[in-house]
């Protein structure tokens, strides 16, 4: 019979949960990691990883039956035939959209660490200071100096490839060698050095794909099939990186199919004592106790759990005494940019499928510049030679047409902007008690929209890229704004923010719930502002930092 009592419980097994489990077990704690979905074994369960395109009946596309079964997932690229099994069922896990919100979830061991985009960037003090300087929301309770050593720490284990650039808005880190720009991208990067005062720089995308082996993991083989799971363990995931480390301690128990329905709170001790778990398959309820609890269930799921917990004391849930639990939901707005044709490189090509592209770090509203909006955006893009699909719209029938289509076409280059979304208390989640999911839990209601700041920023996000490409000699430049609804960035952040004051924040500067200091929330829900860079690396650093703090506090008997 398995013990029901642990030193620590980690709720969720994705990027944050994996790090919490690794750090807490390595520091000597016996840890129970709870995952609401099924297990996915590293490598063994990557069933499609070496399939060729022809081995999928619809060649990886989507059918009408899939669209009917996944009314949310179908709204953007995640609905596909190749890794459908790794996306949560919209039917089983409904939520209420007060306004359209695209919530793309991974309910299984590893969570979205298996399917993530892997772009990994540090926040800078431009990000940590922005709220305070501009009088937006509340100040971050920490600065770059507080988190910088933890970025160092997680980068070394996770394995981030990237280049040292010396840019204050995008701090350098402990990088493995970068995946280089290809020669088409190099041409444009070279021209940009002498344009726009050198402020719009193309650098290799910093990505959690390893370019040199790490213990137990092979270097990237340039398949660019990451989201099928990597048989070499070459990209960071719970399975490739943090779970094996936690398992190696012999102190981790992993329990799949465990839906945490509430955090159990003791009003006399003013501490959480454990969690109540509903078995997703058998519907049986179990209680587990622990000295410390880490909520790492993903932004909206951790907050959803808080909203359901300790409601006998706080009707709004654990952490609601602040009045801000559920508020200030953020994402990154994107799907806007430009692309065009690069001429004169027809005798150049590349070999291997690089699982990253280039990055143009934020340059707006920095170093004294002021636009008609706050904050900024970065660009993620790439240059490549077009393939057969260009031939669809070209005239031609017959052998010569076929042989043309089989050859690489012109070089194209372009980039999409990822913009910071301001925190706004009106963007919030709450419980919808009128609707229950298949396990009887009241579903989450999401009410979130972009505002005037994002709208104004999008103009620059589109026009700047056209201007940049044209200045660099790119032809046939076309802009696009494919439309954005919150959630599409799959960078949900906020709703249980950190802060310096329990009246305006759910968590303190060490990710502790003010009202329950042995409960830590270290996933994206803790974010106070969004920055414009991809957030996962920051969750890793914050989680490792909070775990270190928690273990020290346990030793001091403060929890």
């Amino acid at each position, binding site marked *: 019979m398995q013990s029901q009592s642990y030193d620590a419980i980690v709720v969720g097994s994705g990027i944050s949960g994996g790090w919490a489990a690794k750090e807490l077990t390595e520091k000597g704690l016996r840890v129970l990691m709870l995952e609401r979905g099924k297990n996915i074994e590293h490598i063994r369960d990557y069933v499609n990883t070496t399939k*060729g395109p*022809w081995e999928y009946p619809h060649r990886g596309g989507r059918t009408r039956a899939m669209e009917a079964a996944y009314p949310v997932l179908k709204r953007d690229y995640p609905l596909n035939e190749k890794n459908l099994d790794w996306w949560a069922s919209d039917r089983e896990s409904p939520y209420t959209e007060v306004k359209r919100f695209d919530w793309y979830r991974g309910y299984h061991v590893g969570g979205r660490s298996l399917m993530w985009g892997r772009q990994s960037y540090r926040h800078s003090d431009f990000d940590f200071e922005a709220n305070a300087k501009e009088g937006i929301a509340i100040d971050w309770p920490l600065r770059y100096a507080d988190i910088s050593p933890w970025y160092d720490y997680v980068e070394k284990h996770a394995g981030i490839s990237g280049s040292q650039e010396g840019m204050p808005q995008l701090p350098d880190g402990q990088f493995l060698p970068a*995946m280089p720009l290809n*020669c088409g991208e190099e041409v444009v990067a070279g021209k940009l050095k002498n344009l726009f005062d050198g402020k719009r720089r193309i650098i290799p995308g910093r990505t959690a794909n390893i370019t040199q082996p790490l213990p137990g993991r092979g270097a990237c*083989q*340039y398949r*660019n099939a990451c989201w099928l799971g990597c048989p070499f363990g070459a990209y960071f995931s719970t399975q490739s990186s943090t779970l094996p480390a936690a398992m190696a301690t012999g102190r981790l128990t992993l329990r799949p199919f465990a839906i945490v329905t509430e955090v159990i709170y003791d009003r006399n001790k003013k501490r959480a004592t454990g969690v109540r778990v509903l078995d997703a398959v058998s519907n049986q309820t179990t209680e587990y106790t622990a000295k410390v609890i880490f909520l790492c269930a993903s932004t909206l799921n951790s907050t959803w759990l808080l909203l359901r917990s300790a409601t006998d004391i706080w009707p709004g849930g654990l952490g609601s005494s602040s009045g801000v639990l559920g508020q200030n939901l953020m994402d990154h707005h994107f799907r806007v940019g430009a692309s065009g044709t690069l001429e004169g490189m027809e005798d150049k090509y590349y*070999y291997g499928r690089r699982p990253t592209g280039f990055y143009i770090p934020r340059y707006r509203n920095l170093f004294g510049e002021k636009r008609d909006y706050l904050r900024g955006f970065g660009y993620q893009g790439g240059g490549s*030679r077009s393939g057969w699909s260009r031939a669809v719209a070209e005239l031609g029938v017959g052998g010569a047409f076929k*042989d043309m289509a089989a050859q690489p076409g012109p070089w194209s280059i372009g980039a999409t902007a990822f913009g910071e979304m301001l925190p706004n208390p009106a963007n919030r989640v709450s419980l919808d008690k009128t609707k229950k999911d298949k396990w009887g839990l009241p579903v989450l209601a999401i009410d979130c929209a972009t505002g005037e700041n994002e709208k104004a920023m999008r103009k620059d996000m589109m026009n700047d890229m056209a201007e940049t490409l044209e200045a660099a000699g790119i032809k046939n430049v076309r802009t696009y704004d494919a439309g954005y609804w919150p959630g599409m960035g799959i960078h949900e952040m906020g709703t249980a923010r950190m802060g310096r004051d329990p009246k305006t924040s759910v968590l303190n500067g060490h990710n502790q719930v003010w009202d329950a200091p042995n409960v830590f929330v270290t996933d994206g829900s803790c974010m106070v502002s969004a920055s414009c860079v991809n957030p996962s690396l920051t969750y890793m650093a914050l989680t490792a930092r909070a775990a270190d703090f928690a273990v020290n506090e346990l030793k001091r008997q403060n929890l």
Partner: protein
Amino acid sequence: MASTMDRREAIKTVSMLLGGAFATSSGLLGAVERAHARSKNLKQVGAFTAQDIALLDEVADTILPETKTPGAKAAHTGAFMALMVTDTYSDRDAATFRDGLKQLSGFMQLAPAQRTARLEQLDREAKTYMDARAPGGGTASHFFRLMKELTLLGYFTSEIGVTQAQRYRETPGRFDPCEPYTPGESAWAGHA
């Protein structure tokens, strides 16, 4: 379910089109026999009969015929097209596609040069129509654009299209950001 009747009809039609002397030549009869034997192996896909799929194979193979590499028919592009229309198309696009198929009812009886000419004409029509069409698709697509798109998709994502018409390394093993390219070399195919 191809019957003997179809076979006789097919031979008769070819005979009428090309004249008795040609039709009795063993070469042509052999070709028709082979085509027929193949269509016997085709299975119905959704509402597409084996004959429909045989026709789609011929359309696809006219767009992407055998050159140094096998053509679209060898890659079973007809069956793929039928599957995609059945499983993935909107009702409107499916209706457009099926109407288009009807317009091609005499296609099987055309000689190769006539087939190419017919599709070139449709290709020009489709391009003119699609170029003038409002982006975002307020109006229906031209059926030939749909057929051409599915032909290219079906062929270039088939095993033949990926590994023979293009170059493919499942595990490239390294990344070279700049390698020389000589015209005529085929493209590197993407992974799934």
